[in-house]
């Protein structure tokens, strides 16, 4: 075969390799983005559970402390804000607002020992704290995915494909200061066996 054919074949081969390689990166980015969205829906489920507990809680407290109208309205408003919130940033503020108003509600409850001792109130409180723990775990999983995705679309070579696809950074849900720190774990172990 003549030299020209070899050159053409090599170039074609390189182009094919490049294509395969970028396909791999593309798939990785898509998978990462879908996973992150899935993780987000995991948070939504828990937030919805939290919101759905509120009416019952308000009704129960009302039975003992009917004149504390202001607090009930605040809590109910915070609940509907949380239900209508869409993205991580909106949900973050709505959820924090609900936490704050619930804090006020529980401060009110402190004045009613009978209410505190009521079994259905305690059940609701248990359930609420269970949901809160689950939100914390779901948030951890989501934020870890977000961090991974955001690092990926900003590093070479993924950044090239991400730019072409117009992929944007995800927002964190209730970001905390040490989010980046948590990704790093010291693996140093004493050497040898």
């Amino acid at each position, binding site marked *: 075969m003549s030299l020209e054919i070899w050159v053409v074949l090599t170039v074609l081969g390189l182009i094919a390799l490049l294509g395969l390689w970028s396909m791999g990166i593309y798939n990785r980015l898509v998978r990462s983005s879908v996973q992150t969205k899935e993780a987000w829906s995991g948070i939504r489920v*828990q937030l919805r559970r939290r919101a759905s507990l509120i009416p019952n809680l308000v009704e129960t407290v009302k039975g003992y402390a009917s004149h504390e109208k202001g607090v009930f309205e605040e809590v109910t408003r915070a609940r509907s804000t949380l239900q209508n919130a869409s993205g991580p940033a909106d949900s973050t503020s709505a959820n924090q607002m609900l936490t704050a108003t619930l804090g006020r509600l529980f401060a009110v409850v402190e004045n009613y020992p009978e209410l505190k001792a009521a079994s259905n109130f305690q059940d609701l409180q248990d359930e609420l704290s269970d949901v809160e723990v689950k939100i914390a775990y779901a948030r951890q999983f989501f934020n870890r995915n977000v961090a991974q995705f955001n690092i990926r679309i900003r590093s070479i070579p993924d950044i090239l494909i991400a730019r072409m696809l117009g992929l944007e950074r995800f927002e964190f849900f209730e970001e905390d200061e040490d989010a980046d720190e948590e990704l*790093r*774990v010291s693996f140093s172990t004493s050497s040898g*066996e």
Partner: protein
Amino acid sequence: MERSSTDAPILIYDRIDSNRRKTRWLLAVFVIVSIPVFLFIAHYIAGVVAMPMFMAVVSSPENAIAPIIGVSTGIAVLLLGVTIELLYRYSSRLVLRLTGARPLDPEEEPTLVRTVENLCIGAGLPMPNLAIVESGATNIYSTGLEPDNATLVVTRGLLEALDRRELEGVVAQELSQIGNGDVRLGTVLATVMTIMLLPYLIVAPVLKRALRTSRGCRIGCCVFLLYFVVMVAGSVVFGLFLISDISDPTERLLFTLTMFLPLYALFIGPPIAYMLRSAVSREWEFLADADAALLTRYPPGLAQALAKIRVPGNAVIATQPSITHLWIVDPRKPKSTPRTGLFATHPPIRERIEALSRMGGSTPEMLEAAEADGRLYRDTVASERNKN
């Protein structure tokens, strides 16, 4: 095995990738080492086919041996393929049976269920099945080929001895192993090792009896052991007589290989496979510990749990040698097995605790207190349980 000892923090995802690469290499070597062993066991199972083949060779050595060996190997491989497929499908059931675990009703242990549920959300995993081994030992393992059908197995002792945060730590360790594929690999390795150690599983009890029991039994056992020796030595001696009649070099090579197959399958393959399995499983414990610390955000939880389990005797549970690597801590008696070196399935527990301590949060006093609690548990609850 060498472990890099850098003090710079490493991104966990890089560590997972390097762990995968190492594991893949070790697995490749493992496959190469274990093929002849499986071939031998398959030949042995296919004895009906192998026997006429042998007769054909004996009666007419000048005939071509290669096709005969080829046909019998083909049948053996087919047979083995079916066996492996079946074992693969039932591997987690096999493992569960080997440890005597029973399914746990979620209402029995609400704390455990809630802990697992929460950590699953944090790890993005489906809820595994739960099972329990009714034993005073404090240990835990998981098995299964996919996260969807994985089973988490705890011992009664673990639930009794650990507090909530410690339980969280060990459960998180297991869940991260389910998530990163170690459990799948470990389950496959467990089944493969069970097959490879099969001759020993048969011989060991016989040998024990030959040394201890009455005379009549002893003779029977000796005859049985003699059969094994004859099978191994005989194939070589017998082969040496026949090999001079074979002229074709390829056939000569094939015949020689077949000749040494029993020897290899019984005395060389299993120890090497055992060593490789240990190397694979030793690699992954540090990684899973770190993952657990990341998931619970509380390194002292697992560190204290390990300090409790570390108390001599606490982790010990009757188990098969082929599945020791699945447990979070080596479940064998400390005296009977090497805890360091090539045959150790787990890194020294002290090093694991130290690595966790370096992630922060735990003080030497906390760990000492946990170890004292573990000793107290062993001396009171566990010994009481073992008396009954």
